[in-house]
C-alpha cells in the first residue's frame, strides 16, 4: 500500500530495470528483501559492521543496510543473486563452494560480492589484498582461510 510520502524510484537491479515505491527511511536492504524477495543479502548487524548485506552499487561494494533506498534512484544495484552467469554460479561463487569457503552461509553473499569486486579491479590479488578486501566481512565459521583460498582459486581459474 503506498502512502502520500512514498517515493517512486527506478533502478537497475541485477540487470533489469525496476520501478518501485519506497518509504522515506527504508533501507536498500529492506527493499531488496521485503520488496523484491531477494533474500540473499542478509540483515546481520544492521550497523554496517558485519558485511552480510553488501551489494554492488554502481559497481562498488557498499552496505545495503546503510543505504537509504530512495538514494538508489537511477543507480545500478547488483546482489548476490545477480552474480549468476547464465543461471549458474559464477567462477567466484563456485570457487567458494569448491574450496569449502561456505559453511553456515550467512556471510557468503557479502563475501561473494566483495571478492567479485576485488577480482574485477585486481585479477591477480595476493593473499594480503584478498584479506584487505575481506576486512569488514565477519565469518564466524571458517577462520577465513578457505575463503582466501577460494579467491585465489577463482583468480587462477579466470586467468587460465
Amino acid at each position, binding site marked *: 500500500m503506498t*502512502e502520500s*510520502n512514498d*517515493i517512486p524510484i527506478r533502478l537497475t537491479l541485477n540487470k533489469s530495470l525496476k520501478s518501485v515505491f519506497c*518509504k*522515506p*527511511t527504508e*533501507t536498500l536492504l529492506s527493499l531488496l528483501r521485503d520488496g523484491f524477495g531477494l533474500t540473499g543479502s542478509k540483515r546481520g548487524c*544492521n*550497523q*554496517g559492521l558485519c*558485511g552480510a548485506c*553488501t551489494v554492488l552499487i554502481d559497481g*562498488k*561494494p*557498499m*552496505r545495503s*543496510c*546503510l*543505504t*537509504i533506498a*530512495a*538514494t538508489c*534512484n537511477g543507480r545500478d544495484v547488483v546482489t548476490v543473486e545477480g552474480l549468476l552467469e547464465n543461471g549458474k554460479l559464477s567462477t567466484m561463487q563456485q570457487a567458494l563452494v569448491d574450496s569449502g569457503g561456505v559453511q553456515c552461509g550467512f556471510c557468503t553473499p557479502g563475501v561473494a560480492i*566483495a571478492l567479485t569486486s576485488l577480482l574485477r579491479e585486481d585479477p591477480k590479488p595476493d593473499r594480503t589484498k584478498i584479506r*584487505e*578486501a575481506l*576486512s*569488514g*566481512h565477519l565469518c564466524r565459521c571458517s577462520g577465513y582461510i578457505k575463503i582466501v583460498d577460494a579467491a585465489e582459486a577463482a583468480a587462477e581459474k579466470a586467468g587460465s
Partner: protein
Amino acid sequence: MGPGMTFSEPETLDEVCSLLSKDPEARCLAGGASLVAMMNAGLLAPTQLISLRKIPDLGAITSMPDGSVKIGAMARHNDVAAFSGFLGAQRIISAAACRIGHPAIRNMGTIGGSICHADPSADYPTAITAADAVVSILGSEGARQVAARDFFVDWLETTLEQGEIAVSVTIPPDPSNASVHYEKFTRADGDFATVSVAACLGMSDGVVQTFRVVVGGVAEKPVRSPEDEAVFIGRPLKDSDIVEFSAALEALCNPIDDMRGSADYRLKLMPRLISRALKRAQADQLVSDSGETA
C-alpha cells in the same frame, strides 16, 4: 519512522539551508555510514532526510593555486585516501582516510558526514585538526569559516547552528614539507580508535620546524595544545620533551570507559602512541632529507 517523515534531494545548497532552517529535526544525508546506522539502532528519528547527492560538485577534491586542497563535503573516504595532490603535512588527511572502517564503508562515507557526526574516536576529526584545516559552513544567514579545532564542541556536537551545513574542508599548504604519521590503536581492524594520534613533524638541519600532534578518543573532541607544541620549534626532537608533552596533554583529556578500553587504559596508551607516531614521522623525515641531498 513517523507518518510525516519526508525525503528530498535538493539540487542547490540554498535549498538545503532553507529546509534545515525550518526544521530542527531535519538531517542531511551524505553517505549514510553514520546517520543510517544511528537510525537503524533507534538512536535518531529525523523528521526529514535531505539527501545531498544531487548537489553538483559537492564531492570534488581540488588543488588550489595557493597550494591548499579543498575537499568537498561529499568526498568519499576512498577518494580522499587515493588523492595524490596532498603534500607535506596535508598527507595526514589521506593517512587517516585509508584507516576508516572497511572497503565498503570507505566507498560510502564522506568527510562532511564524518566531521559533522563528530565522534571523537573517528579518524577525520583528529586528522583535520592536525592539518590546521578550515571548515567552510553555509547557512541561511550566510557563509562562515571555522578552524577545525573550533569546529568540534562536545561529544557528537559541532559548532553548526540550525540551518547550517558544512560544505568543504580546506587543508592549508605546508611549506616545511613535514612528514606525517597516523597512529591508530584498535581492538579490531577497521573499528573506531581506542586512541589515535595524528602527528605532523617537519625538521630541517636537525631542528623541528613544524610540530603538530593531535589525539583522538581521549576526550569529547580532539585534544591539541598549540602552547605545548611551540616548545619543540627550533630545537632537536628529544625524548624527554616528548614525555613532558604527553604529560601536558593528559591534563586536557577527559576519557571515558567503554568497550574499546577503560579511561585509565586510554591514558596509558596515549604517551606510547604519541612517541611512536613522532618516531615514525621522524624516520620518514630523515629518509626524505637524505633523498634531497643525494
